[in-house]
């Protein structure tokens, strides 16, 4: 099967031919961790993403642009120099990335960090990708004009329809395979063998929650509450509430009467934001929300359901420990009030990723995370930051994962 070469743009190519092209030594020698040739390319690319025309059209690309600024890159690299002089860090080799189809930009983070680590990379861009992903590919190709030849000699992005033979060829050749996109994808791709020394870095299905302190809510100014709701809106509605980090269940922690008042105010503020942003929910999505909330009620998971227009559905969970983790439709929030933050502990599972929080002290949150003891929850972030990508993701420090260590103890 022929692969469509997206970056660098080029004629269709077979997988084997592409792999052969990646085996030669690049001009100027093999890539190092934090290689200047790559940094220079990434920063040029970042500038293109931050260009007003691009950033206006795809705000998510502006976030990506910020992530790849020179100072940010330097910060990420600085975290790597943690070993003593006897420990030397090198790229893993060839990294094969399989990103999800629907979150347009995650493949860029995954790839950019791996390139920064000095790896040769093959990225499969889904044939269904559109919009922002296309803009990314354009920006990458434009940035090539000033790039060192080593960039095209080591970095490739291709598009192909699902084809196990191609995926198997890339898998067999790679030193590290990065699989995004949920349990099913991970299981499917894992059937294809890696070389004995190679390994997978997987990003399976995750669930995320929002947690609000009743005391914190009461103590917050009207302005701060409004800001929190805007942040919550961004976290939830940006990716149709379907991203791994989008909050699903909303916990209120504290006195239940005060929580009831807080919830009512929160709902009103959210309705105002939805109206102000002109959030439109398609009829099919509205029906989907009915199907899933009615289903939760039918199963005894929810005791009451409320619809404030098509954009906002809330339901009361019957048990604080029986959470609804699956996607219920854009703007559908199971809610539950618990007395103490510690009450979350029995509810949390390994697959739970992000807590977006409002109104807690850092000590309270560190206490919670310690009580969880690594059993679940990989990140705790303030409202409005749930979707902000970080170089530490799902519990992995990606630059560490993308590199390997050699020790010289002589």
């Amino acid at each position, binding site marked *: 099967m022929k692969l469509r070469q997206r970056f660098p743009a080029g004629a269709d190519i077979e997988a084997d031919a592409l792999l052969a092209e990646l085996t030669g030594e690049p001009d100027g020698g093999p890539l190092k961790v934090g290689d200047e040739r790559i940094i220079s390319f990434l920063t040029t690319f970042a500038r293109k993403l931050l260009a007003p025309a691009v950033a206006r059209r795809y705000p998510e690309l502006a976030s990506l642009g910020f992530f790849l600024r020179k100072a940010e890159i330097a910060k990420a690299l600085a975290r790597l120099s943690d070993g003593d002089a006897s420990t030397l860090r090198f790229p893993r080799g060839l990294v094969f990335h*399989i*990103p*999800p*189809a*629907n*979150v*347009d930009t*995650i493949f860029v983070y995954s790839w950019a960090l791996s390139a920064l680590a000095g790896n040769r990379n093959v990225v499969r861009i*889904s*044939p*269904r990708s559109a919009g922002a992903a296309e803009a990314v590919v354009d920006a990458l190709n434009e940035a090539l004009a000033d790039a060192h030849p080593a960039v095209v000699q080591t970095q490739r992005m291709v598009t192909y*329809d*699902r084809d196990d033979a191609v995926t198997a060829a890339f898998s067999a050749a790679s030193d590290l395979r990065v*699989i*995004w*996109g*949920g*349990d*099913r*994808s991970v299981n*499917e*791709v894992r059937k294809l063998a890696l070389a004995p020394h190679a390994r997978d870095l997987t*990003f*399976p*299905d*995750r669930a995320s929650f929002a947690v609000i302190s009743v005391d914190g809510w009461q103590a917050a100014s009207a302005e701060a509450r409004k800001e929190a709701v805007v942040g919550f809106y961004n976290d939830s509605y940006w*990716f*149709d*509430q*379907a*991203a*791994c980090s989008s909050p699903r269940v909303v916990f209120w922690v504290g006195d239940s009467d005060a929580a009831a008042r807080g919830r009512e105010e929160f709902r009103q503020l959210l309705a105002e934001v939805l109206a102000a942003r002109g959030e439109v929910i*398609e*009829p*099919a*999505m*509205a*029906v*989907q929300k*009915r*199907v899933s*909330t*009615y*289903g939760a*009620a*039918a*199963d*005894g998971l*929810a*005791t*009451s*359901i409320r619809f404030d*227009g*098509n954009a906002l559905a809330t*339901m009361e969970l019957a048990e604080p420990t029986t959470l609804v983790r699956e*996607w219920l*439709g*854009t703007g559908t929030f199971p809610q539950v009030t618990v007395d103490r933050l510690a009450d979350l502990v029995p509810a949390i599972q390994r697959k739970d990723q992000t807590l977006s929080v409002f109104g807690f002290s850092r000590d309270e949150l560190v206490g919670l995370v310690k009580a969880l003891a690594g059993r679940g929850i990989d990140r705790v972030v303030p409202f409005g930051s749930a979707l902000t990508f970080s170089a530490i993701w799902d519990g992995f420090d990606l630059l560490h994962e993308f590199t390997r260590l050699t020790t010289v103890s002589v």
Partner: protein
Amino acid sequence: MTALFELSQAQREATLLPQLTELTEHHRAHCEPYERILGALGIERGRQFGAIADLPWLPVRMFKNHDLKSVPDDEVFKVLTSSGTTGSGASRIYLDKEAAGAQTRQLGATLQTVLGGKRLPMLMVDTVSIIKNRRSFSARGAGVLGMATFGRNHVYALDENDQPDVEAVKGFLAKHGNEPFLIFGFTFMVWLYLYEVAKEHNLDLSNGILIHSGGWKKLIDRAVDNTEFRRRFAEDTGLTRIHNYYGMIEQIGTVFLEGPSGNSLYCPDFADVVIRNPETWEEQPIGEPGVIEVISTLPRSYPGHVLLTEDLGVLHGIDDGDWPGKRFSVLGRLPRAEARGCSDTFSGGQAA
């Protein structure tokens, strides 16, 4: 003759509302998941409703993900399944003996309005293999088999290899073409395998009564809509008695039938329809498209008496057509809700 299309809208409201309210209570008492849903929506037991449109509805897709039945397990006589066209999973519809009998009886009574009291010779515009292979029983097969009981001397218009069997059709017409006969098939098959063949071979279908269903989507690229369908059948084959119908397995036995003059579907006296605004979910006025809710007093063994479909439709009028009550058209399906999410590198529908 129109024994089941007689109630004006006011009479229908007055007759059906108490029955539907009783059915709602019946299902609450006998189907726990249904009771939980209504409870969660804040609808208390014994609630009285001001109008049929005020009754709580279930999304039809609920039957794909949940076992909703109002009869004990040991009284389940038949389980109907259909994958429909909305993708994942199949609806499961539970019938006890009484419900199974009632649905056949009421469907028969509905069709009698246009077929008359006698069983007519029947031309099936489908392949005989659709009902032969019972193990892979499809919704289409179920439809064909269900309809077959309303005719006699069945002849299939397609052979076992899905090829038009012109000789079979000619033979049928030679035998039965001079008396009223029944034609049944899915809309696109009727067009592709009966209209085209009849036109090519100058077949006379003027004594036929065509009952068809299934939607126009597959005929859009041929620029055939209901009006064109009726016009060309009349001009080229003499067939004028054409009745499209709308129905679904989740309300088995209830069909909304096109009137003699065409282009409007009517509700039998035990059924009704509400077109809802997809933003407010209020009832739409005449002429405003919306989501179709179908209402029937038939479903007693499962809570399917008030269902929100995933079809779009429009009301054309009330008490002003061939038959009394509301008249409407189906405009197509709601597009499927898709989310942008992390978890679908290789998920369904894009395997190609």
